[in-house]
């Protein structure tokens, strides 16, 4: 966008001085991805199609928003487009037909463990459990964030008709 004030030779290319941001009415939307778990793998390849036991990357295949094109649903990796603090969030209905002693839900940064959340006794007496996990990670541009999960001595899955389970990675500041 080129916005000038005045005419030659007093022409002032304001964008060159100030950048486009100065002339947006609203702040730019922060980086954010949102995906749901869908059970139709043929339609939404990338959704989790197996039960989770040993640690693995959680892939939800129905990507409903990704304003920086930063999420690769084939790998589940989110490449941070802008330096900042990011939240990794997963909220969904967990199917647990063989409850082990615990479930861990992880935020990984550049392939390394960053922070884990636990489900403990709350999974012991049920075949279903709804959980909402939020983990905050300071990131540099280009960092890779993944959501991972594992179960100790059992297995579980995120329920999957497209209204049960959401995964969000977004910049908060």
């Amino acid at each position: 966008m080129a916005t000038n004030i005045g005419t030659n030779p007093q022409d002032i290319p304001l964008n060159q001085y100030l950048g486009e941001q100065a002339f947006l009415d609203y702040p730019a939307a922060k980086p954010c991805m949102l995906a749901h778990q869908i059970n139709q793998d043929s339609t939404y390849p990338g959704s989790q199609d197996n039960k989770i036991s040993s640690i693995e990357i959680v892939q939800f295949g129905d990507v409903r928003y990704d304003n920086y094109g930063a999420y690769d649903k084939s790998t589940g990796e989110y490449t941070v487009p802008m330096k900042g603090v990011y939240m990794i969030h997963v909220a969904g209905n967990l199917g647990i037909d063989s409850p082990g002693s615990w479930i861990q839900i992880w935020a990984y940064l550049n392939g390394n463990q960053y922070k884990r959340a636990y489900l403990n006794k709350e999974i012991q007496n049920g075949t279903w459990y709804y959980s909402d996990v939020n983990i905050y990670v300071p990131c540099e541009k280009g960092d890779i964030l993944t959501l991972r999960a594992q179960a100790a001595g059992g297995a579980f899955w995120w329920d999957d008709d497209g209204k049960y389970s959401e995964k969000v990675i977004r910049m908060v500041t």
Partner: protein
Amino acid sequence: MANVSIGTHPHEIPINQLLGKQAFQDRPAVEPCAIMHHLHDDTSSSTNGGRLTQIGSSWEHIKMGLVMYDNHGAYEKSTGQYTVPRTGVYLCHIGANIYVKNVRDNSGTVIQFMVQLNGSDYKRAYAQKNFIPNPEPTSNADWWYADINIHVPCRKGDILRFISLNNSNGGTHYIDDDSNGTYSEMVFLKVS
């Protein structure tokens, strides 16, 4: 804020007059957000708006009547609806203490919340056995604190709201409320 000009006389350009203050604020405009709390006994709807009755086996709209913040005037307390003021991703949040009455069984899905987008179901949050001790309780009343966070991509003008039902056999629940609204909140917030 003082006027900001580029150039010197006689080519001075009063940029603020041309563009408005917004262009030169250091900080971005605040994002759309509404925060509502739930008040005790707001049958006096002139002050509080739609109090919830106990939620049973049919879907009820969640209406919280005490508006703590609503920078776009987008929440309608008589209906519980939030009309999206700008296109983006919205966080729909409930943080509430929930009174659970006459829920004796600890099997099946008991309490269901749902965010609706333009009247259609978008995403659920459940409470199953989260709040029921094992073994099953002998009393007919229990409490469960719900923290629900659901993200919805929206267009300007879309309508968001929460609904809830109780799927147990004869049980009900309601959102806790006191005279100051300190128990329960509902938030709609643009996050991207």
